[in-house]
C-alpha cells in the first residue's frame, strides 16, 4: 500500500480515459438519437452528460487528491458498514425481483442507458478509492467486471425480446422471431460474421495479454495456503457454497445435480410454448426457476466471492481494506447440539466406553434423530404435500415420476439458500453432523 497521492497518480490516467470513453459513447448516442430516432430531448440529456463526463475526465487527469472525482468518505463508510453477506444476498434478491416485476419499465432503451451510465459513473467514482481499485483492477478480476456488464446486457436483450413478444402474443400477434424467419446463408452471411468476430476477438485478446499481467503467484507449497485462497472465478460460486456445506455435498453432489438437472429440463418440461422465441409470460415457472438458479445462486455468489470475500474468507465491504486480522464472530453449532444441549438441556447422547459398533451407530442415530427427521420430512413428505396443494397442476400434467424428479431437484437446489439463511439467523452449522463417517449435511 502506498500513499493515496501516489495511488491517484497511478490511477488518474486510466480514470481520464475511462471518463472520456463514457463521454464519447454518450455523444455518439446523442447523435444517433438526434438524427435517426428523432428524440431531441434525450439527445440533449446525453449531450449534457457527455459534457459532465469530459469535465470529470479533466479533473481525473490532474491526479490531485482534492480534484479527482470520488465518492465522499462518509458514503463509503456507510456502504462498508451496511454491507454483509445477509444484506448483500437480500439486496441482490430484492434487486432481481424488482427488475423482474418492473421489467416492462426497465427494458426501455433509455432507462437501460441511464442505468448503464449511472453504474459506470459509480464505478469510476469508486475507482478513486484505493481499496476498491486494488480489488477491481486485479488482473484476475478485470474479466469478471467485464462479464458482469456483459451478462447484464445479454439478460436485458433477452428480457426486452420477451417483453415485446409477450405484448404481441397478448394482442394475438405472432412473436417477433416468427416474422423474421427468412433463411440466411451460411456462406457468406454467417462465415463473414464469424471471420470478423475472430479477428476482433484475437486483437482484443492480444491487447489484453500485453496490457494485463498474468495473475501468477508464488510457488505452491503444501503447507502454505495463500490468504485469501480463491478458486478460478467460475468456481467462486462453488467456493461460496462450500462455506455452508460439507465438501462432499457442495463440491460433489450439488454440482452434479446442477448438471443432471439441466440435462433433465427437456424431459421435465411439459410446456410446449416459448419454443424458438423469447417469452416470459408463457413460461413463467421455467423462466423464474432458471433465473433463480443462475442469477441468484450462481452469478451473485461469483460476484460475492470475487469482490467481497477477503482474507480468511471474511466478508469485506467494497471500500474496506482487506486486513487478514479482521475479526468476525461466526461461531456456529450443529443441530444436535442445539437440540440436545440448548433445548433439552441434556448432554449429547454418547455411547458408553467400549461399546460395540452397532451400539455406537445406534447412539449416533439417536443423536442425529432431529436432523434426520427434518431432512426426511423435507425430501419425502414435502413433495406429496406440495403435489396436493401448490403444485397440483404440475402433478397432474407431469405424472408421478417426472413430478418427483422435478420436485427433488428443486428441493435440493433450495437447500443452498435455506442453509445460508439458517447459518445467518440461528448460526446453524450442520443439520446432520456425523463426523465419525465424514457425513455432514
Amino acid at each position, binding site marked *: 500500500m502506498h500513499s493515496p497521492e501516489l495511488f491517484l497518480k497511478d490511477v488518474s490516467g486510466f480514470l481520464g480515459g475511462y471518463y472520456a470513453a463514457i463521454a464519447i459513447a454518450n455523444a455518439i448516442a446523442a447523435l444517433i438519437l438526434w438524427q435517426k430516432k428523432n428524440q431531441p430531448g434525450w439527445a440533449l440529456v446525453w449531450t449534457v452528460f457527455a459534457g459532465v463526463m469530459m469535465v470529470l475526465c479533466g479533473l481525473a487527469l490532474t491526479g490531485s487528491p482534492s480534484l479527482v472525482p470520488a465518492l465522499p468518505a462518509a458514503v463509503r463508510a456507510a456502504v462498508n458498514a451496511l454491507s454483509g453477506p445477509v444484506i448483500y444476498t437480500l439486496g441482490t434478491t430484492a434487486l432481481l425481483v424488482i427488475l423482474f416485476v418492473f421489467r416492462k419499465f426497465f427494458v426501455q432503451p433509455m432507462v437501460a442507458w441511464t442505468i448503464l451510465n449511472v453504474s459506470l459513473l459509480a464505478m469510476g467514482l469508486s475507482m478513486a478509492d484505493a481499496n476498491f481499485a486494488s480489488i477491481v483492477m486485479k488482473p484476475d478480476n478485470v474479466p469478471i467486471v467485464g462479464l458482469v456488464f456483459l451478462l447484464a446486457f445479454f439478460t436485458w436483450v433477452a428480457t426486452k425480446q420477451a417483453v415485446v413478444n409477450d405484448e404481441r402474443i397478448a394482442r394475438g400477434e405472432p412473436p417477433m422471431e416468427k416474422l423474421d424467419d427468412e433463411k440466411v446463408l451460411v456462406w457468406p452471411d454467417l462465415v463473414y460474421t464469424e471471420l470478423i468476430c475472430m479477428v476482433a476477438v484475437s486483437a482484443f485478446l492480444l491487447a489484453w495479454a500485453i496490457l494485463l499481467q498474468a495473475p501468477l503467484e508464488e510457488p505452491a507449497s503444501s503447507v*502454505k495456503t495463500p490468504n485469501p485462497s480463491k478458486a478460478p472465478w467460475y468456481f467462486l460460486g462453488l467456493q461460496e457454497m462450500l462455506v455452508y456445506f460439507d465438501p462432499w455435498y457442495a*463440491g460433489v453432489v450439488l454440482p452434479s445435480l446442477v448438471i443432471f438437472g439441466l440435462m433433465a429440463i427437456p424431459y421435465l418440461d411439459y410446456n410446449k410454448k416459448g419454443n424458438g422465441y423469447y417469452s416470459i409470460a408463457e413460461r413463467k415457472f421455467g423462466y423464474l426457476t432458471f433465473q433463480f438458479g443462475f442469477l441468484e445462486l450462481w452469478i451473485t455468489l461469483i460476484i460475492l466471492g470475487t469482490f467481497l470475500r477477503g482474507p480468511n474468507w471474511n466478508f469485506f465491504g467494497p471500500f474496506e481494506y482487506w486486513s487478514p*486480522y479482521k475479526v468476525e*464472530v461466526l461461531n*456456529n453449532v450443529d443441530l444436535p447440539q442445539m437440540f440436545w444441549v440448548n433445548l433439552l438441556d441434556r448432554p449429547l447422547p454418547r455411547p458408553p466406553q467400549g461399546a460395540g459398533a452397532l451400539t455406537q451407530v445406534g447412539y449416533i442415530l439417536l443423536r442425529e434423530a432431529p436432523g434426520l427427521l427434518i431432512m426426511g420430512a423435507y425430501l419425502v413428505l414435502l413433495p406429496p404435500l406440495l403435489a396436493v396443494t401448490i403444485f397440483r397442476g404440475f402433478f397432474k400434467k407431469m405424472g408421478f415420476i417426472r413430478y418427483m424428479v422435478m420436485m427433488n431437484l428443486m428441493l435440493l437446489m433450495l437447500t443452498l439458500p435455506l442453509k445460508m439463511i439458517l447459518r445467518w439467523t440461528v448460526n446453524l452449522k*450442520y443439520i446432520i453432523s456425523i463426523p465419525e463417517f465424514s457425513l455432514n449435511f
Partner: protein
Amino acid sequence: MAERKKMSVAEILAAARAEKAGGGAKPTPAEESAVSDSPEAAESPAAADSGAPKPAAPKPAGAKPAAKPAAGAAAGGRPSVKDILAMARKNQPAGEAAAVSAEKPAAAPKPAAPKPAAAAKPAASKPAAAKPFTSLDTASILASARAAAKPGPVSKSDASISPRPEKPRSAPEKKAAAAAPKMPMPKMPAKPQPAKKAAVEGEDRRGFLEIALGSFMAVGFTALSVTGGLFTLGLARFLFPNVLAEPPSRFKVGFKDGFPSGKVETKFVAQYGVWVVNSEVQGQQQIYALKTVCTHLGCTPNWLEAEQKFKCPCHGSGFYKDGVNFEGPAPRPLERYAIKVADDGQLEVDKSRTFQEELGQWADPSSFVTV
C-alpha cells in the same frame, strides 16, 4: 477367346444359312434369333457343328436351349440355372447329361456323345464353373502337350487327383505346374523349397548371428527385452533416491521448556506441517501436536495470535487453540499427531499416527504429553 470363337461361329452360321437358303431349307425365325443371341450354343465348334444340321433333324436337345433365350437375353443370352434345371426335368436324356456334366470328372469324356453335347454345354456355362472349366482344359492341354505325357484333355478333377506328387521331380513337370497355376493342390508341396535354398545359402557372415540366436527377429526382441529390463531397473532406482527432501515422519522438536504455557509454536509449519501447542485441555496442561490441515477441505489454516484461533483462508473455518472447530464449515476438530518424550528428554512428534477427537482418540496418552 470365347468372343473370337463366337465371331467365327457366327460367320460359320451365316455361311450355313446362306447354304440352306440356297438349298431351299427354311429356318424358323425363332431358331435364327436363338442361335445368334445365345453364346452358349456358339461357344464350342462342336455345338456349332451339331447346330448346323439341326434344322434337318430337330432334336429336343438342340431346340430346348433355343426356346429359352427370350428370358435369358437380358442376362447376356445365357440361360439361367433355373431354366437349365427346368429344361433338364422336361428332357430326361439332356437332364441326365446336365447333371452328369455338373460332376466334373464325368464331364470330360462326354463330348464324344454328340446328342447331349448341346445340353451339356449350357449346363457347364454356369457362371462359376464354366470359365475355369474351359480355360483349364486349354491349360492342361498345353501342359500335357509340352510334357507329352497325356494325349487327351485333362479335366480339373483329373489334375487334382493326378499322380504328380507321386511322380519323381522332373524339369518338364515343374514347368507344367508353373504353366497351370490354377491347380492349387499340387503346388503346395513346392513351397518349402525356398527355405531349403536359404539354408543352403546361409553359410555367410549373416548366418553367424542366426546360428547364435536363432533369427534376426530373435536378435531384435532379445535386444528389446534386455533394454526394457534395464530401463525398468533404472526407473526402479528412482524409488530410492540418494537424498530424500521429505522430512522424516518422526522428528524432535526440542525440550518441554521450549514450549511455554499457552503458546502455539508455528515454526515447524513450513517444514513439518505441525503446530506444537502447550495448552490446558479439559483441566490438564498438555503439549500436543496439531496437524496443519483443515478438516473441511484440506487448506492450511493460519494461527492468529491476536484472536487466539486457527483460521482457514479457503472457507473461513475457525478452530480454538485446542483444535476444536467453532466457526465456518469445518465439521470436526483438527487432528493430532502422536507425540512423546524421547530418550534424550526431547519431544518427538510422530506424523505416521493421527488422533481424531470425534473418534475419542484424544484420550489416548500418545496423543499428548503432560507438562
